[in-house]
Each structure stands twice: as C-alpha cells, then as structure tokens.
C-alpha cells in the first residue's frame, strides 16, 4: 500500500536542526499535503527527499528498500519553488525538453498546455514571465515527467483564486491518472481544498500525519481538541 516511506530524516545546518527525525508515508494515488508555516522545513524536506540536498540521517524507503540519492529520481520528481530555469528559452522549448530529457509523456503535452492555459505564452522566454505564469509553466512541465511521485513545493504560490482552482483540478486529474502527489503548502485553505492526507510540520518536526479526521482525533487525544473541525484549527491545536 505504501509507495514511499520517509524514515527518521534529519538535516542540520551547523547547529540549527532544520529537520528532526522526520518520518511519514506516501501512499499511492493520494495527494499528500505537507503543511507548515514559513521556516518549518518544508523546502528542506523536499530537497532532501529529491536528493538535491544532502541529509544528515534517515532514509527514503521504496517498498522497504532504502533508495540511494541517485536512485530517487526513478521514483520522485521534485519541482522547486521560486526558480526560473533556462530564462532565455521559451516555454514551448522547456516543455519539449522535459519530455525529451526526462523521457516524459509526449501524449500529455497538448492536454497540459490547455489545462494550464499556456497557449498564449508558449513562445515567451521563461525569464520574461510573471510569477504566476512561470508557476503555471513549471507545473505543466512537472506534470510531463514520468516519475510516479511528484513533489511540488508551494504549487499555488503566485496564483490567483481562479488559477489556483484550475491548477488544483489539473493536479487532481494527474492523481486520477495514477500519479501520487506530495505538495508543500503554507496556505492551509489551499491545502484543505486539494489534499487527501496531511503531514503537519513545525520546527522541523512532524506534529501529525493523517486525514483531517485522524488529525482531529489525534489533537483530541492529546488534550488539545480543536474548536472547529477544520484544518486550520487542527493545525493550531497540534503545533
């Protein structure tokens, strides 16, 4: 049932512990939201998982087998936040490159362009796009990659409400197609809208993992019952 298990992942920057003994599971076909305030370690967690940042301990297990850093790309694809890769190249080329370089899904190209409303910016260099346009282009790119698990850091950052809903719909369609998504989100409202399960991260530690109901029960069991049955209250109660 579990596609990937993150086990006791730790990351330190000198004396600062950014991730402390982080453990959780990623189940196939789910949208898992990693929720936490700014500075809680979400980006560090994703970079360690993707193998673009060295960790100081712990493991990423695939069917019980620890994946070496260079093996993780066979299972995971990580889309970082706030990047502007190949700024001089047009969006159309970036999408083609993703398909060609990563062996991605050429058949999904037209659908992705339509879903993310990229037709008007296909010939624009990535460096000239607005934050929202760039986010849409990069999300489209990530959906073309072939890995079964997609890690997206702040996928709704820079998007307006309408775009957020459209992107959420596109991401949901990916899950329906068999893909697993792990989204790092600091806007709890956005997370509640799209995610099936949640990992609550605060101060580099996992404070809870599960569905909203499970997390709510966990908070109650700890004697910190949320005032309302919503993710914001549950998060505040557990962190």
């Amino acid at each position, binding site marked *: 049932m579990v596609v990937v298990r993150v086990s006791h992942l730790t990351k330190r920057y000198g004396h600062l512990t950014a991730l402390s003994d982080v453990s959780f599971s990623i189940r196939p076909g789910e949208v898992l939201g990693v929720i936490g305030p700014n500075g809680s370690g979400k980006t560090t967690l994703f970079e360690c998982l*993707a193998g673009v*940042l060295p960790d100081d301990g712990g493991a990423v297990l695939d069917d019980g087998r620890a994946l070496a850093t260079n093996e993780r790309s066979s299972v995971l694809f990580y889309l*970082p936040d706030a990047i502007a890769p*190949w*700024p001089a190249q*047009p969006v159309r080329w970036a999408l083609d490159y993703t398909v060609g370089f990563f062996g991605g899904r050429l058949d999904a190209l037209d659908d992705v362009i339509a879903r993310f409303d990229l037709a008007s910016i296909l010939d624009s260099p990535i460096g000239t796009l607005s934050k929202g346009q760039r986010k849409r282009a990069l999300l489209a790119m990530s959906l073309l990659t072939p890995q*079964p698990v997609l890690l997206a850091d702040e996928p709704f950052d820079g998007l307006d409400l309408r775009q957020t809903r459209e992107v959420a719909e596109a991401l949901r369609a990916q899950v329906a197609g068999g893909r697993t998504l792990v989204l790092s989100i600091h806007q709890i409202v956005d997370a509640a809208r799209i995610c099936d399960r949640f990992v609550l991260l605060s101060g580099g530690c996992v404070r809870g993992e599960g569905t909203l109901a499970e997390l709510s029960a966990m908070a109650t069991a700890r004697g910190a019952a949320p005032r309302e049955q919503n993710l914001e209250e549950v998060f505040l109660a557990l962190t």
Partner: protein
Amino acid sequence: MFARRPVPFFRPVPFVWLLEKEWRELLSSRAWWVMLLLIGPLVGVSFIGAVRTYAEVSGANGVATGAGEAFSPLVGVWAPTFSACELAAAFLLPFVGIRLVSGDKQSGALKIELQHSMSALARIAAKALVLLAGWSFASAAPLVAIVLWKAYGGSAYAPELVTIAFGHLLNAGLTIALAAATASLTDHPSTAAILTLSVTVGTWILNFIAAVQGGVWERAAGYTPTAMVAEFQHGLIRLDVVLIAIALIVAGLALASLWMRLGVPVRRRTCESLALAAGTIAAIIACSFATPSWDTSENRMNSFSDADETALASIRAPLHIEAHLAPEDPRRVDLERRALSKLRRVLPKTQVQYVSATSIGLFEQSAPHYGEIWYDLGGRREMSRLTTAEGVLETIYALADVKPPVESDEEIFRGHPLAAQPKGAAAVFYGIWPALIVAAGFLVRRRHA
C-alpha cells in the same frame, strides 16, 4: 502510466537533448557574443602589426634586414596573430564558461536536471563540448587571417598552422575546465570569475618566479598555459605537455562534476576532490617522463640538422651538463633555447644542472667558475663557455669521439620574405567581422524570441 524506472547505464537521447540545451544556452549568452565580437578586432590588431613588421623585415623599405628564421611566417606572423586567441582564452572565455555552468545553479535549472539519473561527468562533458564548439566559432578569426595572408601571396605551412591551432585548442580546453571547476565550486559567478583570474595570474607569477629562481620552479612553469602555448607557437608538439594538458582538463572537468552533485555531502565531495587532486598530481608526474616530441616547424627551429641528429643518436653514453649560469643570465636563455632544448629531443637522458649563487648573476661574473659549462659524457669531462648550438655540439662531438657532420647548404632554411601590406585587413577585422557578429546575434535572438 507512471511506473518506476530502472537506472540505465547510458541513454543517448537525453545526452543529445542536454547538448541541444547547452547549445541554446550558449547562443543566448551575452558573454559568448561579446567574445565573438572582440576576438575579430583583437586578431586584427595582432595580424596587421605582424604583417607590417614582416614586410619591413622583408625589405618593404628597400633593404632586407633579416634572413632565415626572420622570414618564418610561424614566428613572424602566426605566433603574434594567434596570441590574440591566448588573450581571449585568458580574459573572455572564462566568463563564457562560468556563465554556462553557474547559470544552471543560479536559475534553479540544476535542481531540476539533477533529477535525471545521468552522471555528473556526462553533464559537465556536454557543457565542455558545447563550449569547445563555441570556441571553434571564435577561432574563425585567425582562419580569416590565414586566408588574407594567402591572398597577399604569403606562404602557409599546414603542419605549423595545425600545431598552433591545436595548442590554442588545448589552452581553451584548460580555460574551460578551470572555469567549470570554479563555477561548480562557488555559489556565485563573480566569485568564480575572481577565482579563475586568480589562477591565471598565479601561473604568470609562477613563470616570473621560474625566470628568477630557476630549478624546480622552472620545470613547473614549463607546464603553465603560457609556456605550453609558446611551445606550440614555435611548432613544437611535446607529448608530455599534451598529456599533462589533457590530464589537467580531465581533472578540472571531474572536479566540476564532483561539486555539481548538490545532494552529496560536502565532506564526501571534499574527500573525493582531494583524491582527485592526488591522482592528478600522480598523472602529471608520470606524464612528465614522456619524452617524444615532434618539430612541425618548416625551418626545423626546434631541431638540429638531420646530420647532427644522426650523429648525436649514435652517442650511447649518458650526458651530464653542469652550467654555471644564473637564471636571468641571457647566456643561459641562449643555451637553453638554441642548444639544450634541441639536445633533449635527441638525447632524452641528458641531465642538465645549473649552478649559481644569485638569480641575475651580475655580481658573480668575477667568480672563477662563473660562465663555465661542464660536459660529462661517460666519465670524460670537458669545459666550454660557448652557448651557441654549434659550440655545444662541437664539445659533445669532441667528448664522444664522433666526427662532426658536414653542414649541407640544402638544409638551410631560406625563409619566405613577403613585403606586402595588410590591405583590407582593417576593414575585415574592424568592420565586417563585428558587423557580421552583431547581425548573427540579432538574427539568432530574433529566431529564439
């Protein structure tokens, strides 16, 4: 649809995509276009000056002032013309290389591309190949100079030109490897640029120290890019120099690939870098023992005559030379250039030891043994003060009981005097070249936009 994939050993298609991407990035790099733009006028200044000087020496003012070596286009025209490439490789090419390597880090593209299982060495090799291709475009400027020279009626000896072009290609390779390594090691392109220029200036300081101190410094300085290019500019291909240059290029690119792996702990990368450095030093020491060399100059400026080489080759006993000359003494420079560098090519086991108390030798002139050159051949010793090739050979022949060969007039290089002015070169290098580069840049940018 989304399945786990095994990590294949080699997939040609992603590498082709990577090459294409690097090429597009190079085309969109201002640093590369600036290098292309500047190399034309740089080559033009050198070429026009060299052709004018060559014409003067050839008798443009009515009297020929030189003979033999003075009329070698290799020394008179190609060495100064191609020296513009050396300048471009030292001060322009590093920025092109740094931009191509650092750009991915700065933009975040590296984090995306690292998620492909391709080895870091393959990634850096793609960048190096594209940079070399980019350099080849810049090398069109000296090719234009060759075409102009032929149009003036000048002589061009292909092996010399191939040698000098090969030397500059190796030099460009060294610069690319250095730029890639510094860009990979540092977080910011400006830091990488400072580091690269520091290494370049460091090699110049090494050359300076070698000129003053001699000894082991002199030996080390023989492998700096400046010294290496100078050998090629004299039509000499030394296997040890080529192998060491290749070893340094591979080491630089390997270092860049080690530090490109952002997911590997810094401590491990540091240990691997130290191991790489140790391996490179061992390879350099091993390569320095390679003695074959090839003189491709038309006037055989790096060789004795065929008759002398045949006579010297018959000497089996080990030769040891002890020269009491200071590093900065012009006689020592003469002895090295005119005799010993040629002698080492025929008798690789020749050992030369310099003895001096000071670096300039000015206050040693009155010392009893200063200026003496002692030859020891199989236990027989002889002293001479001559620093010319003829004087050195005479002493060695006398010690070896070998009859000096008769000099043949046919072997004397008469040269190719040419009293032609560089007509049209200024228009080509200062006008047409920059205009073409600007137009090409505009078209490429427009096509990509």
